[in-house]
């Protein structure tokens, strides 16, 4: 049951002091950096100058109301959008082929074409991503009783979303970007998704979850970033918020973003 990964966790604990809790520094550079990042469209400014640094080995919540800029930051990080000005760096690199290799992205919508079977899609991911772990994917599918020979066309929306999540989490990436992974999903599926996130955690990778459903995922987060109207409002660890404010992140969020 004990694996090498767990050994590393134990190693890191030997060096920790009370106040300075950090993860083992396999790789020291931040996984995501935004420097005065601006994204504007013809009729609106989606991001008005974002400064953000996110380190490895963290599970981070990107929290804000709809239209606050959460999705924009994620799309800029995976190269689907280009900055209007400023910089966004993934492991020190601008978004491009090298960063796409180490970023695993789960969008809000299904991006798989219908005519393929599940096994076809797995082969697709295997073809294009060196760090895709097909055995892990098959294992997870089996636990959910999804038959790899089924065509995606025949599946319900919920099942397709689970398949997508499995594909994304089966990549051994450095940065996972999950855009609203639990919105519109039934509670049992929600638990499964959160459990998948927890069990796939590794100290060299970071998971950024963008959502407006906070109370469900609070316990899974290390840090939270509040974003509103294209500006970062607050960056704190969940523990800090609970210790300093004596409230849950959800409560704080509701206070801060009261209409």
């Amino acid at each position, binding site marked *: 049951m004990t694996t090498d990964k767990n050994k590393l966790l134990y190693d890191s604990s030997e060096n920790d002091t009370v106040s300075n809790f950090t993860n083992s520094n396999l790789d020291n550079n931040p996984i995501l950096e935004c420097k005065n990042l601006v994204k504007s469209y*013809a009729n609106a400014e989606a991001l008005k100058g974002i400064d953000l640094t996110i380190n490895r080995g963290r599970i981070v919540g990107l929290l804000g109301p709809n239209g606050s800029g959460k999705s924009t930051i994620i*799309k800029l990080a*995976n*190269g*689907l*959008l*280009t900055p209007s000005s400023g910089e966004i760096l993934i492991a020190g690199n601008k978004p491009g*082929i*090298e960063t*796409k*290799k180490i*970023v695993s*992205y789960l*969008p809000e*919508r*299904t*991006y*798989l*074409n219908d*005519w393929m079977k599940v096994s076809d899609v797995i082969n*697709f991911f295997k*073809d*294009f*991503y060196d760090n895709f772990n097909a055995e892990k994917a098959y294992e997870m599918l089996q636990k959910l009783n999804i038959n790899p020979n089924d065509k995606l066309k025949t599946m319900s929306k919920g099942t397709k979303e689970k398949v997508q999540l499995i594909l994304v989490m089966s990549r051994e990436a450095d940065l996972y970007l999950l855009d609203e992974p639990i919105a519109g999903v039934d509670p049992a599926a929600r638990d499964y998704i959160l459990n998948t996130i927890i069990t796939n955690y590794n100290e060299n990778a970071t998971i950024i979850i963008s959502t407006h459903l906070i109370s469900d995922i609070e316990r899974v987060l290390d840090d939270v970033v509040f974003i509103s109207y294209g500006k970062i409002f607050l960056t704190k660890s969940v523990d800090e918020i609970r210790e300093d404010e004596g409230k849950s992140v959800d409560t704080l969020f509701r206070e801060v973003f009261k209409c």
Partner: protein
Amino acid sequence: MLGKLMKYEIKATGRTLIPLYIALLAFAIINKIFIGTGLSHKLEGFGSIPFILSIFAYGCTMAAVFIVTFFVIIQRFYKNLLGDEGYLMNTLPVTTITNITSKLSIATFWNIISGFIAVLSIIIMAFNADAFSRFFYEFFQAFSDGYAQFGIQVYIVITEVIIAILVQLIKSIAMIYASISIGHLFSKHRILSSFGAFIVLNLITAAISSAIGIAFSLSNLSTLFDNLESSWPIHLVLIFTILFNLIFFIAYFIITNYILKNKLNLE
């Protein structure tokens, strides 16, 4: 990576086209049976209905092959790169150039195949051993006559013609891609804008072609054609057409690539 993308392109598009090809050839064979066995003449009245239906089905399928080829090219680009699947395709570790090239190459491939299958189906139907061998005899006779008169030039000209057709083909496809990409720049009425862009691009191409044509006829270059013994003018025209279309092809490709790389905005 390009090879892998092309593999998936063929899989995705072949599913639609290959059944059509099979259907077309099947109808051609059926029609051939009707014609060949003389049934078409012997049956009268109601008896000839199956034959008429068969010809009709063949005609429809032929039309379908070309229409569907055209639509597959458009829809594949639009849906796979600019629709929901774009969330996957544009986050793969490949360049936009690779993505565009994979689609363009397979689109060209199917265009050529569709043409071949169409011709093949006609040959099947019209196959008559005598007429065929006579046709081939005269065909090769023309070649050796041409060779006797002009020498190796004949084969060079033929090669140039084939290249010209190919370049014209990829230019057209690239123009379609550029139109769709330009339409993507608009946040509303994207399909309408794509059509508009297509029309505009066509007009621009036509305008430039005409301008060059007029300039050419007004200049002294046309006197070169008075001397028909030399085959140089033909080469010149063909090579010029090839270069001309090549430049447009590159321009459309650059437009498409720029938009996909820098101005992508998926819903």
